[in-house]
């Protein structure tokens, strides 16, 4: 992806736990304040995917050391939010366990299911989702394309 041109990217680094979700929303708000031309629909799509991927990372990448609080403190998750001509994007990186996931195999569970929708919802909300393991870190990239400016 090209670097965003208009403004600096928004970066947050938070402990990899569910309570940190409260720190993610203000970062998203900051992005919308800096890019007030992004339509509501596209904002909602990125927000949905950001929350689902965040929860997925917290619940899966750090599952193994859940029992040890000291270990957990060392677990951090970085989020970069940016907007460019191509769209709005989010990049998560974390030092948790590698994700054993094939995104091409993810499907939306049936309407009776009470769980297991997170990644399917992220995929449905996004124009592009990718996962890579680079240098011992997980990297998730999320993209919502925005309509060209009039």
């Amino acid at each position: 992806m090209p670097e965003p041109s208009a403004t600096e990217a928004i970066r947050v680094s938070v402990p990899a736990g569910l309570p940190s979700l409260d720190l993610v929303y203000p970062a998203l708000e900051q992005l919308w304040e800096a890019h007030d031309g992004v339509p509501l629909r596209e904002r909602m799509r990125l927000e949905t995917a950001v929350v689902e991927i965040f929860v997925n990372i917290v619940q899966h990448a750090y599952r193994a050391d859940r029992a040890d609080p000291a270990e957990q403190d060392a677990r951090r998750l970085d989020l970069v939010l940016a907007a460019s001509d191509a769209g709005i994007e989010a990049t998560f990186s974390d030092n948790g366990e590698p994700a054993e996931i094939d995104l091409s195999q993810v499907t939306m569970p049936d309407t009776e299911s009470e769980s297991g929708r997170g990644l399917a919802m992220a995929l449905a909300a996004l124009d592009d989702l990718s996962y890579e393991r680079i240098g011992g870190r997980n990297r998730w990239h999320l993209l919502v394309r925005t309509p060209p400016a009039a």
Partner: protein
Amino acid sequence: MIEYDVSNGEDGISVIAPRGRVTVVTARRLKDLIAELVAGGSARLVIDMSETTFLDSSGLGALIAGLKTARQAGGDLRIARPSEAVQMVLEMTNIDKVLQPRESVTGAFDA
């Protein structure tokens, strides 16, 4: 971050209005609230989602669990007045097919 307003209306129908974000952090409370109401004899429930600004997969799971709980008790669960964000999630997951959103709280059990 979230408030669940509960009111018991006419005809034994209970209304839960989640105000704020229903997420993995707060969905458990919604699921428990529905279970408590059903156990207390209120198996006909309307979830007024006009002020629900965000619904994630866990929140959706709580609604589906609630629907099952209500139906097992001979009642039902209806969603009314979904916000734009909630509507998007219902459509994206096809849940709008089994939980068709109603236009009003008072008329949610009319059809």
